């Protein structure tokens, strides 16, 4: 894609906290990264994981524990959470890639339920109350992430925002590089025609597993960021509803497009925050979007846009 488009997007990201409520903006970034990581699996490898919340939420708990109970600095906490999610992804992935297609989806869903159970039961998780009051701490032991800078009359948490934005860019860049590398080409070959990729001599299982680990680690990084922003890790983060939501975000924006999942995440999170007053109807609306997407809109809006512009976005 055009380098000016990228530059414009980064500029937007840098200026966003002055126009949009920064905490909300950071939430958007977390879910955008989560969806982009998920898309690495669904869009570029053709594997539908229905248990990605396990990595997102699992990492949130681990980061929270490291920062709150063991007193680590935030960057080490996030690193720990990300590594944990990658490791968990290795375990889940090794089991799940034994099955294909729909079975794969159900196996990941069921394994994620075990993680949910652990999040409820382990001593450090705070049970159904979640892990609360996680400190944001000093980045590298130097920069106070809690510091607000007053612009006009509103105090803005700028250091936290730019830290989040930097991590988002890092994660997004990793995904982008992975997709556009020879490794990504092999993944796409597997997605298009697995037997053929196999007959070409590629170790399909190994590629799938690497993609799975990468995707879960980055999903974990998103969860770890969210844990520092909201200063809590809760059961919602590991529940299957969250797994369903990330599928929706990806589908809505465009499976297998670079920008689609993030755009989808922006849309869904914005809808959710704008519609808090419609009560249970939010579930109905989300479900309706799902149905419409699947029936008439399978490319997602970025995918459709890309088709109109005849380029890959």
């Amino acid at each position, binding site marked *: 894609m055009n380098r000016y488009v990228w530059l414009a997007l*980064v500029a937007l990201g840098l200026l966003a906290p002055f126009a949009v409520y920064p*905490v909300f903006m950071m939430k958007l970034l977390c879910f955008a990264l989560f969806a982009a990581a998920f898309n690495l699996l669904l869009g570029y490898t053709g594997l539908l994981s229905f248990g990605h919340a396990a990595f997102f939420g699992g990492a949130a708990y681990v980061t929270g524990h490291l920062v709150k109970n063991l007193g680590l600095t935030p960057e080490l906490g996030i690193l720990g959470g990300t590594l944990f999610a990658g490791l968990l992804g290795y375990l889940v992935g090794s089991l799940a890639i034994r099955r294909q297609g729909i079975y794969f989806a159900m196996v990941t869903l069921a394994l994620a339920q075990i993680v949910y159970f652990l999040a409820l039961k382990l001593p450090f998780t705070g049970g159904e109350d*979640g892990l609360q009051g996680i400190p944001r701490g000093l980045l590298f032991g130097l920069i106070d992430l809690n510091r607000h800078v007053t612009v006009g009359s509103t105090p803005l948490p700028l250091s936290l925002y730019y830290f989040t934005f930097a991590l988002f860019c890092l994660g997004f860049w990793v995904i982008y590089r992975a997709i556009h590398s020879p490794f990504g080409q092999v993944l796409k070959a597997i997605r298009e025609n697995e037997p053929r990729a196999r007959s070409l001599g590629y170790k399909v299982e190994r590629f799938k597993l690497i993609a799975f680990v990468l995707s879960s680690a980055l999903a974990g990084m998103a969860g770890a960021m969210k844990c520092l922003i909201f200063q809590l890790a*809760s059961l919602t983060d590991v529940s299957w509803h969250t797994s369903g939501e990330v599928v929706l975000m990806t589908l809505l924006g465009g499976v297998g497009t670079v920008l689609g999942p993030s755009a989808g995440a922006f849309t869904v999170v914005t809808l959710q925050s704008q519609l808090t007053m419609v009560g249970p109807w939010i579930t109905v609306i989300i479900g309706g979007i799902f149905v419409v997407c699947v029936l008439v809109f399978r490319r997602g809006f970025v995918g459709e846009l890309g088709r109109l512009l005849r380029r890959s976005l």
Partner: protein
Amino acid sequence: MKSLYSSAALSASLLLATAGFAAPPKETISDGVVKIGVLTDMSGVYSTLGGKGTQVGVEMAVKDFGGKVLGKPIVVIGADHQNKADIASAKAREWFDNEKVDMITGLLNSGCALAVQKLGGDKHRITMNTGAASTELTNGAWTPYSIHYVYDTYALGKVTGQAVVQTGGKSWFFITADYAFGQSLEGNTALFVKKLGGKVVGSVRHPLSSADFSSYLLQAQASGAQIIGLANAGGDTINAIKQAREFGIGQKGQKLVGLLIFDTDIKSLGLNVAQGMQFTSGFYWDRDNATRAFSKRFFDIHKAMPTMDQAGAYSATMNYLKAITAAGTDDPDAVMAKLKSMDISDFFAVNGKIRVDGRMVHDMYLMEVKKPSDSKGEWDLLKIVKTVSGDEAFMPLSESTCPAVKK
């Protein structure tokens, strides 16, 4: 990394720019408006006992107060936290940061309550919790701006446990929801059972939201305990009671006791199944003329009688507004000082006062479910067996671990 550096640079320059500002002159009502936020479960498992009804309670209080305080308008806003602590925390943050909300009430569900209360403490805004049960809110999680208004697991366990043991229920078996709330309910009850010479012969922990309780009920039956204590809530309690009846448990010799039950649960069970059960509540609509008058007005709007959470939200709002008037400002420190020194007395809170730990102590009631033949209408569900004074029901300050309590 680039954005990190620019962040630092930007922070530095902005800091310089803002350093020259002086503190704004003190207003009596900040931002010219008093904003009350109702943040609670409006769609999930607790929405019938809290939900929109809580907001109705708050709006009624504002209307009854005249819609203005110290000449400035009062605004009520509401949101659904969907029982998710992260949504609750995000919404509260947005309300405090952008909407200038002065006080948040409702806050069903301990997870959400703890998150918002902590945030309120950080941002110096008042939280008046009418929904959650955890005693942690007035102990370890206490803040100078937190009030726990209606009930907690300590009072529920103590009032019910004592009453049952005193009427002969000496041996107990607990069926407990396997999470912090259930465990604290069981722990608090067991403590008073043992104190009065009763004993706990066993307990079983079940996962949250179990559909089938028959196995646990049979274990309880086999234990031979006189009392089967249900330390769970909502759908779990309802299913357990229903299935006990099915297996004929709780009719001969053994007795079921629910530790947290709301009027709406009884309605869901039906008097036929629930009759004779005892539990503790902070409010019943049919207690006296004042509660009946309020509840009738509430019913006309909400089409259901108020629960203790909903009635409590009315009372909390009313007293908050009174405290602003008395303090002559909505400054949180001044208002909290007034709230903690004034008498809280209305149809909801009898002999109420707010202690230093934020606990509002008031009379609690031991309730019993009526027989179907004694019920004279759709909402004629319960009778008050015993009134227990607040000082007796709630955790004494001597046992508190609240940082504000001087030992």
